[in-house]
Structures are given as C-alpha cells and as structure tokens.
C-alpha cells in the first residue's frame, strides 16, 4: 500500500490545460465548462496597461487535495466517500445519493456533479484507471509540458516526491483548516 500525494512546481505552470484534457480523456470525464476534476486558478494582472503587475498574474493548478483529514468524508451520510488503501479519497458512485453535503463541506470546492450519473465526481488520482492497471503515474502528471506535477508515494522515503518535499520549501492550501492535504505546492 502506498500513500499517494502530489507535489506541484506551480511556478512552471503555463495554464495550458493539457492536464485537464488528459484527465478527461483518461477517465471519461464529462465535457462541459464546469465539469472537470482539475483546473488551473489564476488572476488577471493588477494595474493599468502598460503598468501591469506581473507577479499578480500567477497560475495555480488545483484539484481534490486528498486530505488526510477530509471534511467531505466526515459529513458523508452514506459513506460513499471513503479513503482507499492508498490514502486516496474516493467516491463510491453506487452509494452516493447526491445529498451534496460533501460539496458544501469541501473547503477546496473540488467536487462537482456528473450529470450522467447524477453522483458526485472529483479527482481520484486515476485510481480506477492508471493505478488499477499497475501504473504509478496520473494522466495529468504524465502529460504536463512543463512538468509541474510529481506524483508518488509519500511513505516511500526514496520516492521522487519525498525527495522533493525534503529538499524544497512548500506549502499547502488553506492549511489552517487542518485538513492535511496531500497536494503540496513547491516554492
């Protein structure tokens, strides 16, 4: 068993959305503007042309944080949301009754409704596709042109991600909430 996480060298991100497309093709995600498991946040630069603040225009890739203490899991009345053996937060579509408690509980707004199944969907770290086939990559990580993403086993001290987290400074989003995300942003 592994404890999967992802480190994001977010300064590399060019907001190209290769990750989003790869995710959709890999996992058969529904098309549509609001239907995506991963996205890239960003801001328009502040200021007036031509004096725009470059630093204010950063891009921040995001998705389900696979919290170690996941509020979504806590509130789910049917236990549709669960931690799998690799620490990945998953949703069992058969159990999901679309009460949308988890959507409200998630501080990262990581969940959406799949109109085809009428259940909640979100990033799974490709658990039922790539990982189930024995691959150890996610579709988004694999395809990214500027190699923003490093996916791997946090419990394995030899893994690339462990090495990165040991040697590079990083932060997690909304860490004050105590959700203990397994997405790490490298600075």
């Amino acid at each position, binding site marked *: 068993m592994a404890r999967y996480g992802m480190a994001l*060298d977010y300064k590399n991100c060019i907001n190209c959305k*290769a990750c989003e497309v790869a995710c959709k093709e890999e996992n*058969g995600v529904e098309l549509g503007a609001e239907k995506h498991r991963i996205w890239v946040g960003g801001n328009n630069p502040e200021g007036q*042309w031509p004096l725009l603040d470059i630093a204010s225009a950063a*891009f921040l890739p995001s998705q389900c944080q696979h919290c170690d203490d996941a509020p979504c899991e806590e509130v789910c009345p049917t236990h549709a949301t669960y931690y799998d053996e690799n620490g990945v937060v998953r949703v069992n579509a058969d159990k999901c009754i679309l009460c949308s408690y988890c959507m409200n509980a998630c501080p990262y707004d990581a969940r959406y409704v799949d109109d085809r199944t009428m259940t909640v969907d979100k990033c799974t770290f490709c658990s039922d596709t790539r990982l*189930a086939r024995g691959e150890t990559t996610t579709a988004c990580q694999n395809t990214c042109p500027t190699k923003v993403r490093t996916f791997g086993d946090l419990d394995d001290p030899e893994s690339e991600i462990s090495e990165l987290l040991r040697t590079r400074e990083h932060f997690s989003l909304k860490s004050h909430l105590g959700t203990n995300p397994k997405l790490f942003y490298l600075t």
Partner: protein
Amino acid sequence: MSVEVSRRKFLQGSVALSVAGASAISATNLFSSEHASKHQSANGRIPSTITTKTSTKEAENVPFLCGICVNKCAGFARVEDGIITKLNPNPYFPKSRNMLCPRGNAGIQTLYDPDRLKYPMIRIGERGDGKYKRVTWDEAYEAILNGTNKFKGIKQILDEEKDNRATIGYCNGEGLSKEGFEVLVGEKIGSPNYVDEISICLETTLGGYVNTLGTYGEADLNNADYLIIAGANRAEAIITPDTMDMFKRSKGRGLKTIVLDPRFTNTSAKADRWYAVNPGTDLAFVLSLTYVVLKEELYDKDFVAEHGIGFDEYKNTILSSKYTPEWAAEITNIPAKEIYKTAREFMQARSPIYYQGRRSVFSKNDFQLRRAMATFQALSGNLDKKGGLVYGEKLALPKEDINAPIYGQAQPRFDKEGIAIPSQKTGSWIVFRNMVLEGKAPYKVRSMFMRKHNPLAGVPNTKKTVQFLKMMDLNVMIDILPSDTTMYADVVLPEASYLERTSPVSSYGATEPAIVQRKASIAPLYETKTPEVIYKELAEKLSKPLWEITKKYDEDVQDDTEGMSPKEILAYYKENGFDLTDPWEKPVEEQNKEKVVSMYGEKAWKILEERGVYYPHIEEYHKQLNPNESEYYPDNKKKYTTQNDKLKVHFTLPNLAKKGVDAVPTWHDDYKFSVPEGQFRLVTGRHAQFTQSGTTNNAMLRDLIPTNYIWINQRVADKRGIKFGDKVEVKSNIGKVEILAYPTEKIAPNQIFMLHGFGGSSEKMEMAYGMGANDALLIEDKIEPVYGAAVMHETNVEIRKV
C-alpha cells in the same frame, strides 16, 4: 500571492473567459464508463461516447506522432478493442520528452469527429454551397481526370492548354505526407506553381537567420541564463522543446526572461520584465540594443573578428544612424533606460539568447528584424555553443531518387513581382493568387490541387481567395475535415487522420538527434485512405491519359519517340518518368523499413517499431531520471558545437543590396507604428488549446475555447460602452466581422487582438460553424518585399458595438 483556486471563483472570474459560453455539447454527451461503454457503434470501430474511460483490459500501445500542430510530438496510442481510448506521451523522443499538450491529448476527437470527411465526394451544387454526392474512389479519380457536367477534368484542361502543366496550381500545409504530394503534383505531374504555408508563416524568420548565420538554429534554453523573447508566445503557442525548457527555469530560477509583446500573455506572466512594445517596431528595439552594445564596445570582439563578415560596415552604419535608446523609446513604447539595461545585461550574461521566434511575418520589415536579431545574438558570441543558439545534427536517412519527367510545354512560375528573393519552390501565396485573380499571370491557372490546407482561413483577404477558387475549372481537395476551403472543391478525397496511418519515417535534427516514426494505431475509418495510397491511386488513374496529352503537344517527346514501336514507347514512358506511379510502388511501411535497416540495421528498426524513436546507442543512453524526465544523450555526446570554423556571421549582405534590400538592417520612417485616431491595430495569435482552423471543430478543445473574442482595452471599452460578451463589429479596408468583446487591461488602447482560426464558414463543421470571427477576412493582403510573405499585423480596423 492571492491566486484564486476555488472552482466556483475560477469559473466566475475573468479567467473563465476561455470557457465562457460552453457548452452545447455537454447536453448531448453520452454516458461513459467502463461498464456502459461497450464501444458500440455502426461499424464497431467508433466509440459510442465523446470521452471514453480507459479500462484495465489488455491494450495495445502504438507509437504515433501527433499531427495537430507542426511539432510532431511522440506518443503512444492506447488501443482497446480497436478503439483509441487515450493518447499518452512517449518518453523516448528528446524533442517532446514525455509530454503532450492539450491539443495533442484531444487528438482522439479529431479521429472520431462526427463531421469528418468519410467518403469521396463530387460536387453537384454550386461552389461553396456544400452540395456533394457520395461516390466511389474510382468515380472520384475519374471525375478528376474527365470532369463531370459541373466542372472540367484535368485531361480537358491540359489538352486545352496544350500540356502546359503550369496551369495546375497546388498547395499543401505542413506535415509528414506533404513531400509525397509535392512529388505527385510538382515533380511527376509537373506543375511549378506550388504555394504552401511558409509564405503565410515563418518564411522571413528562417530567411533572416539563414542569410545571416547560415542556418536557423535552435535555442538551447536548458543552459541559457538570459532570454529575450519577442514575437513568440511560448506559453500559449506551444513549441517543443522550447516551451518545456523555458518555463521550468523562469521566475528567478536561472533563466532571466524579458518578454516583448503588445499584449500581456501567459508568457508575459512568466517574465521578469514585460515590455508592451508597439506592434511592428521590434526592429527599432533591436537596433537600439545594438547601438548601445557597439557604442559601449560590449560585444565579443574575438568572436566577431573570427567569424564576422562585413562587421565594420555594419558597425559604422548602426552608429552613424544614431539608433539611440532615446530614439527607439518613442517608436517602441519601451523606456530608454530599460533598453540600456537590457543591452548591457544581455552582453554581461553568461549565455544570453535573443529567441529567434517563429510563426508569421508581422510587419513589412520582418526580414530585417530577423537579421538584426541574428546579428545582435552574434555580438554576444553565444552561437554554436552550449547555452546559445546551437545547430545540432541530423541522423541521415536515404533519399529516394525521383524519376521526374521534363515537360517541354510547362511554363515557369510567375509570382515574383515586387519580391527580392522569389522562392522557386514555394512562391508567395498572396502574389500568386492576386496575379491570377487580376489577370496578370502570363498564362491561365485553371486548377488547384489542394491538400491539408485551408487558405480561406490562413491567407489574408478571404474574399479574394474565394474569387480565386471560383475562377478555377477544377479544384481537388484531399483533407480530413470539411474546411471552408474544402467547400470550394469539386472533388473531395477523404484522408485518413494521423492516427490511422503510418507516415514516412522522419529524422529530427538537434543537439539530440533522433529518427521517429508514426505508426497507424488503427485502420482508416469509413472509406478514408492514407495520403500515400491516394497519391498512388491518383497517379495510376492520371498516368496514361496525361501522357497521351504530352505526346500530342510536346515536340521533344515527339522527336524522341519518332519511329519507336509501342513497346519502345512504353519503355521510354517509364524510363523518363512519365509513369507517375513509381514513387509509390512500395507501401510506406516497406519504404520505412528499407531506409532504416539500410542505414542503421535490423535492431534499429525493431527499436523504432516498438518505441517510435531511434537514435544510436538509445538503449545505453536513454535513462529515466524521475517520473517526469529522462536523459537522452549524455551531456558530452550532445551536439552543442557543430559549426566551429564553418560558422560565419554576415553582418552585411552586399549581394542583397543589389536587389534593393538594405545590406545592414536599417530603420525607415514609414515603419513607424501609426494608427489613425479612433482606429486600432489588429494583432492575431495562437492559443495553447488551439492551433489552426482545424482544431475549432475538436469537441474537447471546443469545450475549452468555443469561440474567439476581441481583446479591447478596458478603458476604451468603458468609454464606448462595450462590456464583456457584447457583440462588436470589426471593420478593415477589406472586410468586416462580428465578434464578442473581451475588455481587458492586457492590451493597449489603440490595439485589438483576436485568436486566429475561428469564424469558419463551412456549415459542415458543425461544432465550429458560427463560432467567432475569421481574421483572414480582415487582414489586408500586403506582402513583405524580400520573400513576398504575407504581413499579418499591419491592418488597422474600426470597431463598433452592434
């Protein structure tokens, strides 16, 4: 940093621009999961849903080369039960190093696009109205040869033109099977009138560098430490490997990046400094950098002494022209002190690169701009070495001998008017088209053979291109989608997409050279055929009848064959190349194998078949370093330095001066940026989720970018009462379009921007139709004077809210 990360905020915010308006298609999107998707469809080879979840079943992984843009990134197609369910990057190719961009990932949707051309068709309506009838391949070839009651066949045309092969024009966009089309129509059928994408693309860039440095080179961005990037937007117009290297080290991580762009782009967002340069004035910027460097004697004197030619004249001209930063500041909109700083920093850097750029010709002075960039780079001495512009090497592949016939009656090409270096092979789209249209060509051009090319979207002044195509007696199109241009074809031949065909093996030259092969992942869908099969079959059909016409009109052939027996004539026909079929006697697969085995042996072929990539010692050299990255060649085996003494820098070009081209890059006052009050300079560009007009119909990409907007300065928009999503009319001297507005501070008050490739007029591309505006309707058909390339950014427009 306060970047908004929540999905909801993200959708509400202005970054939602690219997804605003999506998406009609999600409503019709079918259920897709491992259980539900049994890939049912009419013939069992087309997935029943738009996105298909990959499964844990056995799958084949077939190496392919992406065909969406020019990069040809390598990948593996995951094929489950004969359906391509996913495209994954190929870690063995040093150029695309385990990446596929969003377009590459969405390539599946090209293949399974419901609007694809599926069968050969013959026009039964009027040109442009989309009325066709489905025919067999043989009927289609037959119609090309003999025509129908709606249009003439090539036989009749050539007979009427007395075997003047130049009456056939032809065009083809970039791609691996382009060469075969050039062989078919150019070398074998014998037409000299070829136009391709280069004269609407990067011709002056290549020309400027080749004339100055002998070659275009490649920027070694992995090892550079200072970068000026102007006229290129690598974050959004992705080019491998540059995009991959550039942004991993920007933002204070080793590669100081200076971006010049009239717009604030995603590339600008990665810059240390962004200069909002006035369109078309980059030349003044480079000249003033050069002035500072020469004046302050900051250049690499040893390098210049060793490799420079005509340096003194160059130096004197620049210095006496007084291209001071103060002078340039007024023209370029870049403060003088920034120009001083940039010039000095560049020369002080260890490995500085002024990025060569790509894509289209922006302004009339583009050739001189590129020359000035190349010479400025040379002043730093950072050429032909690690971290500089490098030249690399290519792994050799045998070339086929083409037995090209000589047609005595064929006239030469004519599109040379007003051009200093007319290209013999690819000509000038605009000059060629306009001369035919205006009756200035010395003979009639009566037919266009087209493949994988959409001049209605790519060549400025669409109205003229439509008229031009309407003048023809016969238009033939080989393509994948029913593009705007395809709608003007008389005979349409549907081509297999890049995932359905094995393409000619290709060699990629660079610091880490490799040979790559695209293999067919699945058999061609519907009745489509691979280009090479089409060339072969068309050649078979045309060979004898066209030969009969040559015999009738070509006196040389008559003299040669005088008194020959039919058998001898047949031998003559074959020996002299009049048999058009010989280049395709062997299928591509066989040709590839022969080429590779003859050069590199059986083992190399096996590796290429399995991995899609081969280079000597690949098994020893290729090392996976981490989940994302590999090493291809050990650093001491990379081809950083290949020119050595051969390297020459032509600071002046006296030979070109004889043709009226400035020998030293020079600024002329009519190059100045000027936009009449109340008007706007139109700037166009590309986007990461979108390349050319072909990708607008891609369901996945369309979902991300359904339409193009006009970027207009926020304050100007406010004054005119234009809000996000308002419809505005944009009008130039030659045409007008309607398009939705995107007010933003990311563009200057006197400029507007729109993405290229939208606004398709073909109703047969149902997803793209009616979305956005086609910039080619607005861009005036001006040419730059050195190559006759289309100038893309010198059109002023008016806008009005509707």
